[in-house]
């Protein structure tokens, strides 16, 4: 699992690099536009998202229509551009519909974990003292599990299903985001401008909103985006084990799992959903790399 890149992230510096300020997002956008790899990945991801959003209108066939006479037709067969699966369902349509659930399971847990982990980390970093110790030590405990193991263990005991998968994955990502958020917040909090704000006697929440959050949000955001591909992979892994979405819902990991035995009969068909996961994940990683190097470069 590329879960591990959730762990070996270098300590990220606060995005408050001296030369980037208000035009932060514009600068980022401008730099990314100069990077052909990032453009390509971005374009591909947009295509996937559009495909997922408009699946009901653009899919050539009903993804749930079983046809036992036309099982495992090779790609290019009349009427089935990418062939059929082990129950004779149109693979292209299933891949389009599958994008919905796979993207959702990539984005939603990271979003939830960013809100929860970001809040915990910022609060821990800003408060310091025993609040920090209490929050971060609990995070350390969750961090002591390999990510896949934690996800499997939690959704395994909660039982399968989308909701439980969501809970499990959010729990997996919360500690790493909290760690990043805490370390940037600690750095920002010792800046003189935070001291100056404290000197006005302003309440802590106001200082957090105005001075801390604005300067840590970028770093947390970049780190979170790097987790989306991990989330997609683990989520499909859960479905692959039968812990994610339930049949007959189309989801890439689930499709891989259900065609596992067909690998002997129609290898090409059975690995296609994996190609989707792989390409999406590569694009996300390359784009996240692009964002990171665009942000670190001074100028």
């Amino acid at each position, binding site marked *: 699992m590329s879960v591990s890149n959730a762990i070996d992230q270098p300590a990220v510096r606060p995005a408050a690099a001296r030369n980037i300020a208000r035009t932060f997002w514009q600068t980022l956008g401008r730099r990314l536009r100069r990077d052909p790899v990032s453009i390509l990945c971005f374009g591909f991801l947009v295509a996937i998202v559009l495909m997922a959003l408009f699946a009901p209108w653009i899919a050539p066939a009903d993804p749930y229509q079983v046809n036992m006479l036309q099982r495992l037709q090779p790609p290019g067969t009349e009427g089935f551009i990418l062939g059929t699966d082990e129950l004779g369902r149109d693979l292209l349509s299933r891949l389009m519909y599958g994008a919905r659930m796979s993207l959702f399971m990539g984005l939603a847990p990271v979003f939830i974990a960013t809100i929860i982990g970001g809040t915990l980390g910022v609060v821990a970093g800003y408060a310091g003292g025993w609040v920090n110790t209490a929050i971060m030590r609990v995070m350390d405990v969750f961090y002591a599990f390999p990510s896949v193991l934690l996800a499997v263990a939690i959704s395994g005991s909660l039982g399968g299903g989308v909701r439980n998968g969501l809970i499990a994955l959010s729990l997996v990502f919360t500690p790493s985001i909290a760690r990043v958020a805490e370390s940037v917040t600690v750095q920002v909090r010792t800046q003189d401008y935070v001291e100056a704000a404290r000197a006005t006697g302003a309440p802590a929440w106001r200082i957090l909103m105005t001075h801390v959050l604005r300067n840590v949000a970028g770093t947390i955001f970049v780190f979170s985006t790097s987790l989306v591909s991990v989330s997609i992979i683990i989520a499909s892994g859960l479905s692959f084990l039968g812990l994610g979405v339930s049949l007959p819902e189309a989801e890439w990991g689930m499709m891989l799992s259900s065609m596992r035995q067909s*690998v002997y009969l129609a290898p090409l068909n059975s*690995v296609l959903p994996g190609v989707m996961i792989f390409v999406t994940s590569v694009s996300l990683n390359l784009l996240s790399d692009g964002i990171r190097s665009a942000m670190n470069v001074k100028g």
Partner: protein
Amino acid sequence: MAGFIAYRLLYVLPISIGVSLICFALTYMAPGDPASSIIPDDASPEVAAQIRAAYGFDRPLPIQYLLWLWRVLSGDFGVSLSTGRPVTDEVIPAMMNTLSLAGGGALLAAFVGITLGTLAAYRNGRLSDRAISAVGIAGMSVPQYWLAMVMVAIFAVELGVLPASGMGQPGDDFGRTLSFYVLPILTLATVPAGIIARSVRSTVSETLQQEFVQALEAKGLPAWRIFLHVAKNAAGPALAVIGLQFANLLGGSILVETVFSWPGTGFLLNAAIFMRDLPVMQATVLLLAMFFIVANLLVDILQMLFDPRVKSARRG
């Protein structure tokens, strides 16, 4: 230094307690009465109550936790609900199988990752560097269970040169036994190899840009001797990544073992989840997590031996 090691060793204690709490909680997160999985469906209410009392399910939760922890510490993980054998008899052999796979995967990943990463760093910015970096990204983006299926499709189905699943028979000769390891290890090694290559590349190229390297070049030292200096400086961070990857292989093996029907902890855990065999599940998760903790501990200590500055950079 000794202080740091002592601190790091002691820190394992609260973390382990936390981990054991989570493992204990797994039972209670499961829907339904945790005792119901132990009590036979046809048991009379009196028998059911007796079983509850015997397992301590009628006690308050903290007491139950302490009782459970005490049993675990004395090596008693209970009895598997699906096979009726002691859990330890199931988990220990599985652990051995997982470790041999993860160890092989880690060695391969370290070798490939270090070689590619160093090459890329020396070819900084050139085509080969970019190619290697792309391979690194691809390596870390691949879903392992899918890669496993692709491997099976190519090597077992199309070419028919390697076995697709299992560990073979006890009587197999050495070469045959080894052949069962090839595909799982190749699969397991891919993701960590990509991550290690990327990390080694950035560490080595950072080191190459340092002034002491220029000074060595100015002295006219041959390239291979300069490389020794660079390697010494890049070793600490590289070691850290490799150690973490080994630890992660333990977790990642869950899916790979399932595809290859490899009788390791992942396979066992997966089976236990579907049989709702809670004692086996608990024991597997706890043991894997403990391995992970120990691996992290060793990485921290080794890394500090390589680079004493690490100590000051860490909390605590």
